[in-house]
């Protein structure tokens, strides 16, 4: 195995965390579909429970197949470790619940996936965790929102669905100035397009349902820690992170930051969060996501290549009012995207159709290759109308703050032949035009 130099991204995508199985010689990662693991002896059992030895006890807490996925994503992100979760939403919840509780406060970007907005605005509020939403590019608003009880800054690398580029260097610098960690949702970019830790983020997560797996068959999430945030220093300065820096009665009186200088966050997230909330990933799901990650570099390059062709087609089309893709000079974050996302801005973007809601409906229903569904990051191309689906709980003002109009259509460009995708769009745009021109008899 490599080890004498720093392995490259493509090598890590295939090898990080996995070696031929020592028991069977199996070269591919085995699926360890078992709830639990036999102890060698009573003494071995006690040592595992007491964290004197490393190993697996029960698959809600850890599993060998999941561990390969966790190590692999951590390696690709340049992190210190990771935890696989039941979904991306479970990863976000685990991140927040590990360091926040009743009375805590989060400052979050307003350009979020609708589900994340729901979790923060409605559900976490019910558990006493408040959130202030700010425009991701308004650094003064981030600063003004900080309270003594603030525990976390949170945003998406590319905001959903307007693709606002989060200025991670700027926002993380402000967070660190106030001894706060920055968590980012890195789902749209994947580590192939951007490694947020290199720009200052402290924690990140993926909905692995999307590009990491790529095949659209499983739901999963991965929470990754950079290992860089100094919880002890932050606690000393602000008193904020005693969850990680003071003895925890719920686990042997352990002080997590003493147990692991750079792994305290993940220790508590696993030993408390997975144990008590239980939103763990099935080993079969972990295995399927690993199959996807093996080809992540190849797929992401093709996703971006196809997207650029589709974006160019739409931007020049008379029925299209606006294309929101940061590689276009018209996008407000174009300069930032050039700096932070030189490999491309992913394959999810939105555009505004000229015409009525009826035109939008006709357009979506006329598409044949694009599938109308609520997902992104599939190898197949997808389409959705955010205002009536993913973001339907947001009122008009919140929609406007997130950059969503009534006629906004979101595309997720897959790996098909790009000419076929453009033909499909061309046909649907023509149908939408006919909908406007036709007499209103329907």
């Amino acid at each position, binding site marked *: *195995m*490599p*080890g*004498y*130099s*720093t*392995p490259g991204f493509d090598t*890590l995508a295939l*090898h*990080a*965390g*996995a*070696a031929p199985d020592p028991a069977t010689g199996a070269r591919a990662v085995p699926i360890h579909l078992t709830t639990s693991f036999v102890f060698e002896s*009573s*003494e071995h059992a*006690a*040592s595992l429970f*007491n*964290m*004197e*030895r*490393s*190993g*697996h006890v029960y698959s809600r807490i*850890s*599993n*060998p197949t*999941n*561990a*390969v996925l*966790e*190590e692999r994503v*951590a*390696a690709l992100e*340049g*992190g*210190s*470790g*990771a*935890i*696989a979760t039941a979904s991306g939403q479970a990863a976000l919840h685990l991140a927040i619940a590990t360091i926040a509780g009743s009375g805590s406060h989060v400052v979050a970007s307003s350009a979020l996936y609708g589900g994340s907005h729901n979790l923060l605005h409605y559900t976490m509020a019910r558990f006493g965790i408040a959130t202030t939403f700010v425009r991701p590019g308004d650094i003064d608003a981030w600063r003004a929102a900080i309270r003594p009880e603030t525990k976390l800054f949170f945003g998406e690398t590319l905001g959903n669905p307007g693709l606002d580029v989060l200025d991670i260097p700027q926002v993380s610098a402000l967070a660190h100035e106030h001894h706060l960690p920055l968590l980012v949702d890195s789902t749209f970019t994947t580590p192939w397009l951007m490694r947020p830790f290199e720009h200052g983020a402290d924690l990140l997560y993926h909905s692995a349902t999307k590009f990491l797996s790529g095949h659209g068959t499983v739901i999963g999430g991965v929470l990754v820690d*950079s*290992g*860089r945030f*100094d919880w*002890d220093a932050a606690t000393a300065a602000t008193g904020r992170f005693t969850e990680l820096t003071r003895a925890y009665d719920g686990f*042997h*009186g*352990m002080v997590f930051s*003493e*147990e*692991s*200088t*750079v*792994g305290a966050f*993940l*220790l508590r997230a*696993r030993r408390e969060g997975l144990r008590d909330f239980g939103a763990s990933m099935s080993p079969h799901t972990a295995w399927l996501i690993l199959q996807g990650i093996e080809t992540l570099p190849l797929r992401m390059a093709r996703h971006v290549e196809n997207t650029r062709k589709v974006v160019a087609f739409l931007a020049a089309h008379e029925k299209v009012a606006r294309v929101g893709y940061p590689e276009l000079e018209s996008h407000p974050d174009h300069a930032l995207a050039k700096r932070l996302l030189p490999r491309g801005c992913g394959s999810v973007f939105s555009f505004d159709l000229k015409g009525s809601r009826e035109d939008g409906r006709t357009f979506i229903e006329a598409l044949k290759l694009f599938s109308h569904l609520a997902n992104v990051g599939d190898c197949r191309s997808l389409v959705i109308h955010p205002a009536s689906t993913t973001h339907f709980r947001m009122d008009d003002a919140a929609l406007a703050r997130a950059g969503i109009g009534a006629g906004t259509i979101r595309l997720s460009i897959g790996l098909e032949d790009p000419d076929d995708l453009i033909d499909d769009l061309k046909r649907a745009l023509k149908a939408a035009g006919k909908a406007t021109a036709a007499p209103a008899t329907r």
Partner: protein
Amino acid sequence: MKIAVPTSTGPVEAYAYTGGQALDATRPCVVFVHGALHDHSVWTLLARWFANHGHCVLAVDLPGHGRSAGAPLSSVEAIADWLLALLSAAGVERAALVGHSMGALIALEAAARAPERASRLVMVGTAYPMAVSTALLDGARDDPLAAIDSVNAFTHSTLASKPSHPGPGAWLHGANRALMRRMQAGQADVNLFLNDFQVCDRYRGGIEAAARVRCPATLVIGERDQMAMAKHAGAIAEALNAPTLVLPVGHALMTEAPDAMLAALRTALGVAPATATA
């Protein structure tokens, strides 16, 4: 726990991890000494095991590292004196000294300076002399973060260490890089990387120290170690008349092979499985 260590300028606070148990100096004591740009956390699994199996444990943060205050010390001899002073301040008269890499040299020198206070000596991931290449020292001086990445790559022998440390899901390359960077960033006025590697490079008293050691000694080395190569451990093993236990790992023995390291340490410290108490 915090320990006030007397120095020529007055007491300076040091930190030692005690394995999750209160320090009881009446028990057989094991002292763990970390290597360059590390802290106590490379030992926590092993420290917890010994602390829960009848031992008094101190996994120290060396001066200027992690939670210990004070400036980093610049020689193996000075750090050995500090270690002995720390043990006295903690009320520990005699202990088994276990060190990794630079820490192995410190444990050796401490066992030589106070032979009556060392019950056992275990040198992990060690070589003697522990010469550091001019290129690496230059790198440490001119571009320490890049040099950390280089050392981190040479420290690990695989991309898939199981069951990982401190638990499943930890990516050892990333965690070690983060730890080394954290230690480096903790010193505003001193290039800790350069300091620690110079400490290793300059130490010349190993063979003489070995002659003064009176306790049983053991070497535990990684057969794929690229930082302290196994072939360079023979002279010090011979001088100590120490058996050498070879593990199929690289320089990061405690994190790449925590179970094998526990077995090796039990052998080296004379803690046989049959006598262990859960």
